[in-house]
């Protein structure tokens, strides 16, 4: 079985993140760039499955600029068998539907039994790419899962949305997305990091995918304006000396918050 994990690089959420006020794109130079935490959890699931089921290949697929190589290589160090990075100048600033078109073409090029994605990315936070892929590839989607059961023929899982719990099941090939209820990812060890250097790492352009993707032929979402909000300033800070609760009550009353 071949599992393709969709891995995305994102600005490290532990630091301040910036948008370039000229281009509206993520300002790569100002933030650390890492594999998004949720795709590490997706990878963790795929790699642990492969460890228990011989004959499973795990491929990490990403669409990003070439400087995402280091992040994608981490997927190999964690235990993915090979990586494919789709990188193309024509894709800078790609919106959701263009991203999905390119990833769909790449998935068709690679071949897959199961595609695993994160439920939503921390930078875009759209949470819609996996569903768009199911439509483009005409494969079933089971998304936002809190648990997965997988065998050679089918995948099933639980989706909990507010008060509703769904048990979903799909024949393979299918696409699933996982939530942060999945276990934390392993840290790559030294052996993994060394092994990653020898694993196949392909960087492909849109033309290499042999797909007919015309960026301008379809409507695309574009940013029209962008502005930074002034950062919030700290207000009063008191140390409790036995009456902080009363002082808080006063503050709330004074500000008409009760």
């Amino acid at each position: 079985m071949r599992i393709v994990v969709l891995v995305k690089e994102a600005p490290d959420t532990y630091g301040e993140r910036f948008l370039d006020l000229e281009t509206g794109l993520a300002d790569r130079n100002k933030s650390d760039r890492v594999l998004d935490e949720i795709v590490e959890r997706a990878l963790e699931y795929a790699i642990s499955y492969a460890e228990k089921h011989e004959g499973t290949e795990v491929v990490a697929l990403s669409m990003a600029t070439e400087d995402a190589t280091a992040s994608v290589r981490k997927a190999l160090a964690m235990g993915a068998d090979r990586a494919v990075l789709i990188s193309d100048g024509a894709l800078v600033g790609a919106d959701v539907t263009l991203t999905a078109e390119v990833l769909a073409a790449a998935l068709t090029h690679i071949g897959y039994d199961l595609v695993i994605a994160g439920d939503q990315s921390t930078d875009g936070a759209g949470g819609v790419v996996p569903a768009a892929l199911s439509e483009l590839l005409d494969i079933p989607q089971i998304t936002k899962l809190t648990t997965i059961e997988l065998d050679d023929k089918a995948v099933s899982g639980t989706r909990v949305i507010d008060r509703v719990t769904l048990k979903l099941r799909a024949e393979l090939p299918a696409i699933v997305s996982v939530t942060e209820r999945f276990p934390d990812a392993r840290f790559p060890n030294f052996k993994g990091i060394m092994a990653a250097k020898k694993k196949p790492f392909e960087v492909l352009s849109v033309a290499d995918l042999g797909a007919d993707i015309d960026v301008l032929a379809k409507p695309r979402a574009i940013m029209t304006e962008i502005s930074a909000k002034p950062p919030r300033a700290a207000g009063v800070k008191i140390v409790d000396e036995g009456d902080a609760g009363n002082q808080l009550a006063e503050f709330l009353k004074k500000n008409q918050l009760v």
Partner: protein
Amino acid sequence: MTDNILVLLDSTPDGQLSKSVPGLLGAATGLGNPIALIVGAGEHADALSAAAAAAGATKVLLADGDNTIYSTPTVDALQAAAALVQPAAVLAAHSDQSKEVVARFAVRTGAAVNYDAIDVTRDAKGIIASHSAYGGAFVVTSAVTFAAPVITVRQGVVEARGTAQPVVAEKLAVTPSGRKSAAIESIDVADAPTSLRPELRGATKVVSGGRGLGTAEKFVLVEQLADALGAAVGASRAAVDAGFVPQTFQVGQTGVQVSPQLYVALGISGAIQHKAGMQTAKTIIAINKDETAPIFEIADFGVVGDVFTVVPQLIAALEASGK
């Protein structure tokens, strides 16, 4: 002639329109003539149509749902509705129910998506969506290069409301697309919460608790303060991970993003991912034992202290003043 705006409405398991609906129809009213689509209303069709009309829908299209096939029937219904009304925009909530449906509709019909809008307006050039990026640090507006945009709207943020309309409901004929879909093997609906506490999404006051509450039992303190203030209850991811409350309570980057008048953080350190979900609150109050906790950097009123002594005193003071 006014443009038609097609609005996909979410409903709850007990046959009510979702809380996102009034804002969605309000946003749509600002753009044109709001026509609602409700899928799978079943026996609740009349009540839901009436509620949609009351919230501003000039027409309600009703399509059958299917409790055995996941997602695809709603995408097919949206496609049929769009073919019928030829909308100038398609609006839906940025909810787990709807955002995937409209994304599939968009790639199926070749439309572009502006997602997670906090406001939708129209200027001379067309329809524009505003977004709050990176937890409110940036405000971005977006549009589409041509054709009708598909826009998802963050739940509970749009203040505009539509005007009540006479009920005009119509059954929508849908041809199933036959796209490969997951099967729904079971649906379990938990009982509606019995408390009268407001819902977190869109709440005007929120009291959240973090790992500092220690245990699920002691987390009750958060609920007590919330009830004293008439606030919704939220939590940090650490509190969710520790099992104090279900995931639906999580505030932050990967949880619910709130913009209340008042946000009270109890025993929460203020990790950047938590702030991303609450830093646009009007007034922020934080109580934390650790004077270096980052939450104090954005708090309007910070108390360095123990939640288990400060909060009971606060509740007592609020009760004493009759609140």
